[in-house]
């Protein structure tokens, strides 16, 4: 038996390690070995520069040499499949051919369920915490101040919020949804049940816009201009209809005057929430115009930090995984927000609507308690990245 001192590189990467690599723009090359159909439905997305290649694993079984020849030899290859087995199988083949390859632990399913928790602000007034699900482009937040915690737009896996509050020694006092979401299942009702804190949503969103059926879940109705106190922060409700009729923004203001606007699917950092998911795009677009150009500017200034509930590309972050930017910067960088007349805006919006994912109608049913999916069904409904923004 001989021993060598050749350094070994890791043959696996966790989803969290993958996310760190994507944020740091490491020159990663992703080889996705699922079948073409699954790859087309959704895949690992990072910054725009991320390189990805799809070669189904069975091509390595049919003609190993030909498949291997299509993979670059001089790159760090991360092999991805649905669960793990095929990517491990292909990574082994690649290493046998002298390539530098690892596989994603747990497969793309684990990547899809990765949550990332990091602070947006941490100062004398308290903390603003971002809790993101990067694979879906879903972002939620907590305000933690003086032992109180408010949760904004919580996602389905509620343990991350409970754990963040517990670690901070805070009790959850408010659960706020900006609107009834269509792309993901809200953790709001479940968190209300777990903590006893009230779940707030605007009553206009408690009616399913397609079914025209009322919600079957407990919630507290929000009023435009209503104000809450979370520790040292005041939190004001700003009605922002357009993406949904009952969408609100929450404006949190610290004692030093610094303000944070939780926009939900109102304005995003590089786009804004599409007005057609309720099935009334043409009717709701002028309402969205008034929210963006007339209603919102009365409440914020260029220093207000904008915190949306979605991103479409990782490039929208600040370089460190925080999806936040001052309003002044957002106005400059967001092509969707350039000044337009109502007619120009309507033409722009209706000309840039992406595909309407059919499952979004069902997800809204789930979010107002009309249907109750199993864990597996919930995972299926939430497959892939959100399509809540206008096309860019």
């Amino acid at each position: 038996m001989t021993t060598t001192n050749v350094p070994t590189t890791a043959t696996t990467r966790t989803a969290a390690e993958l996310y760190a690599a994507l944020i740091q723009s490491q020159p990663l090359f992703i080889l996705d070995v699922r079948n073409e159909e699954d790859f087309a439905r959704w895949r690992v997305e990072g910054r725009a520069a991320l390189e990805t290649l799809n070669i189904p694993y069975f091509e390595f079984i049919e003609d190993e040499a030909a498949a291997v020849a299509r993979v670059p030899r001089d790159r760090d290859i991360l092999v991805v499949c649905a669960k793990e087995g095929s990517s491990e199988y292909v990574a082994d083949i690649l290493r046998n051919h002298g390539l530098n390859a690892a596989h994603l632990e747990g497969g793309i399913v684990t990547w899809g369920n990765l949550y990332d928790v990091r602070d947006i602000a941490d100062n004398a007034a308290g903390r603003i915490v971002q809790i993101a699900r990067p694979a879906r482009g879903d972002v939620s937040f907590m305000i933690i101040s003086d032992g109180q915690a408010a949760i904004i737009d919580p996602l389905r896996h509620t343990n991350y919020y409970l754990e963040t509050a517990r670690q901070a020694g805070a009790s959850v006092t408010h659960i706020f949804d900006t609107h009834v979401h269509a792309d993901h299942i809200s953790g709001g009702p479940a968190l209300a049940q777990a903590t006893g804190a009230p779940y707030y949503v605007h009553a206009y969103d408690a009616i399913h816009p397609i079914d025209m059926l009322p919600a079957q879940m407990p919630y507290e109705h929000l009023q435009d201009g209503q104000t809450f106190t979370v520790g040292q922060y005041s939190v004001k409700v700003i009605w922002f209809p357009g993406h949904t009729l009952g969408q609100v923004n929450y404006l949190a203001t610290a004692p030093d005057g610094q303000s944070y606007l939780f926009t939900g699917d109102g304005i995003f950092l590089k786009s804004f929430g599409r007005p057609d998911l309720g099935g009334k795009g043409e009717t709701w677009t002028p309402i969205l115009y008034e929210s963006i150009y007339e209603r919102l500017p009365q409440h914020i200034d260029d220093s207000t930090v904008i915190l949306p509930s979605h991103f479409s590309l990782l490039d929208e972050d600040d370089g460190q995984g925080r999806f936040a930017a001052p309003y002044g910067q957002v106005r400059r960088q967001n092509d969707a927000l350039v000044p337009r007349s109502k007619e120009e805006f309507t033409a722009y919006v209706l000309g840039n609507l992406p595909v309407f994912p059919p499952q979004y109608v069902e997800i809204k049913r789930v979010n107002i308690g009309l249907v109750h999916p199993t864990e597996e069904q919930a995972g299926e409904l939430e497959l892939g990245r959100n399509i809540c923004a206008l096309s860019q």
Partner: protein
Amino acid sequence: MATEFDQTLDVKGAKCPMPLVKSRKAINDLTVGQTLRVLATDRGSVADFQGWVKTAKNIELVAQETVQENGTDLYVHYLKRTS
């Protein structure tokens, strides 16, 4: 009418990529024109076998069906060696 077959490969419980790896080996052992019946519990095998036969040189996917066995789904694939 039931699909005819010559051999059966039981890969129940096997996870991706093993149902396909073992099917490839079993097909290599068939004579041309014979059909292999594959019994799998991996749901991903349905789409993967469809993708596989598009690139495979000598395989035809004759039929696929899902049947219930002891309360779980069983995915049955019929693969014919064509050359």
